[in-house]
């Protein structure tokens, strides 16, 4: 329930949209996927990304979603969606079953982000992970000056009801990738207006000005 609420809030919040109506962060994710690939979207919400991928990339897409409403909306759109939990159900999937396994805006809500990421790269050749960057300057300022847990348009919850239990910064996420030996093939940070930040800036700049980050990952070696 909480995850789907988060999704909806993200959708309805000031998340930047193209004239066509698609969310920019989803377009960034879609850009990383090869045409005709087999894709698993973990925490697929109402299926917006899967639909975008099917329409623009001709992918064979599957979704996992925790909330019943999300599953029903997805199935009603003709998508293949399973009710399930990223923390418990990924172990049931065989190795190399997908070309891409996507975790969009959900990593911070999982109980074991490391285990989830390891499963993603076992099930899929590539993983795509997007998450809100807790190192963004506005969040840092709210803790530094306000002395309380930050709330933003994208992260509207009070701490006691937030589904987000494992926030991380872009720097933190890079460290996880090093720890479990994951190669970063592509990375994109989006600023507060949802536009990608220029590539030729140092990591600390991304970590300060990127409100969201999207990574394309693959197994090392």
């Amino acid at each position, binding site marked *: 329930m909480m995850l789907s609420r988060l999704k909806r809030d993200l959708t309805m919040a000031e998340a930047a949209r193209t004239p066509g109506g698609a969310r920019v962060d989803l377009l960034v994710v879609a850009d990383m996927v090869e045409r005709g690939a087999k894709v698993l979207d973990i925490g697929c919400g109402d299926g917006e990304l899967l639909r975008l991928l099917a329409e623009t990339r001709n992918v*064979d897409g*599957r979704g996992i979603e925790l909330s*019943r409403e999300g*599953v*029903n909306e*997805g*199935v*009603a*759109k*003709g*998508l*293949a*969606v*399973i*009710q*399930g939990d990223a923390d418990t159900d990924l172990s*049931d*999937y*065989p190795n190399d*079953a997908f070309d891409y396994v996507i975790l969009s805006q959900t990593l911070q809500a999982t109980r074991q982000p490391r285990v989830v990421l390891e499963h993603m790269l076992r099930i899929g050749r590539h993983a795509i992970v997007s998450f809100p960057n807790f190192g963004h300057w506005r969040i840092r300022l709210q803790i530094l000056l306000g002395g309380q847990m930050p709330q933003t348009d994208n992260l509207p919850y009070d701490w006691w009801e937030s589904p987000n239990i494992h926030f991380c910064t872009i720097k933190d996420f890079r460290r996880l990738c090093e720890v479990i030996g994951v190669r970063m093939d592509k990375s994109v940070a989006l600023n507060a207006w949802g536009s990608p930040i220029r590539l030729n800036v140092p990591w600390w700049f991304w970590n300060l000005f990127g409100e969201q980050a999207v990574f394309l990952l693959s197994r090392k070696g």
Partner: protein
Amino acid sequence: MVEAVLAPVDRVREADEPHSHVVRFGSDKPLRLDAGVDLAPFQVAYQTYGTLNGDRTNAILICHALTGDQHVANVHPVTAKPGWWETMVGPGRPIDTERYFVICPNVIGACMGSSGPASTNPKTGAPWGLDFPVITIRDMVRAQAMLLDHLGIESLFSVAGGSMGGMQVLQWTASYPERVFSALPIAASTRHSAQNIAFHEVGRQAIMADPEWCKGRYFTEQKDPRKGLAVARMGAHITYLSDAALHRKFGRRFQDRDNPTFSFDADFQVESYLRHQGISFVERFDANSYLYLTRAMDYFDLAGDYDGVLANAWKGSPTRFCVISFTSDWLFPTSESRAIVHALNAGGARVSFAEIVTDKGHDAFLLDEPELFAIVRGFLEGAARARGLPAQRR
């Protein structure tokens, strides 16, 4: 379509001369049974609704449950009650007969016009009784495939069914994957659990303990094991509901009285309800059929046909699946549906899965469940797009 309502006594005639379509296969087209014998001649009774399109791509096969029959969406010829899935199947319903051509056969072993123990044994001219060979879910599906061959339908747009119907759906996708474009197994399982076999055994023993059962020869002995069959139905009916649903419907309320009678009358509403369920069931169902069909469910173990590895049943399956379960179903619990989904995923099949919150138990698939209707409608809509069927007119 059925107009006249039959007197209960005519139920027996339905077994040979049903009030529906029927196709009779001669000795040249035997039904090969898992038991190792050929059944010939034999017949399959079926109903259809809607119109088959020119490309023959819009046919949906409905598989009925243990005590169901082919009368999905018309008045039942014996009971005069509405069809058992009228909320799901019909014009504008989720399985829309204005778009799809719906076929529902009576299963082999049943008593509403497909060959079963109540049918006449051509060799003796008397009802088969226990001389009828034991049949399996796979045999039912084989007979249905022969019916489709007869109707000239090579590929089904969808196969749908709940409970024992769901077992047939799963068997269809394993036996004839290339003939099934999409599949809707609802409140189903790939194997009957020990608990479910145990419940069925209690029902069978109730029938066989009735002196009027006469070792299955009650037709020739002019008897009718009504009491045994009614008890079997009463016991089974409890398993189709849930503790919460029984409490909500009846609680501990008395039936037409304010105080206990200090007797063994049906003091409680729930007793009265169960007795009614038992009595009305025997008006339309054959006791031996009940033995055969429960046995077929007990024998069902899909993984057993694939070296115990369920995923192998669906390796490279081209079928689109939508698996549905209900939270309060303790007969075919959600864990059984999840096992199906895991195996489908492992086999790389395209699968959707939804669990619906309800207190109505196993029977929820037959009842008014708006969420079930929305999911079935949406799933078929998506499959219709993928199949290239014309969009809904509304």
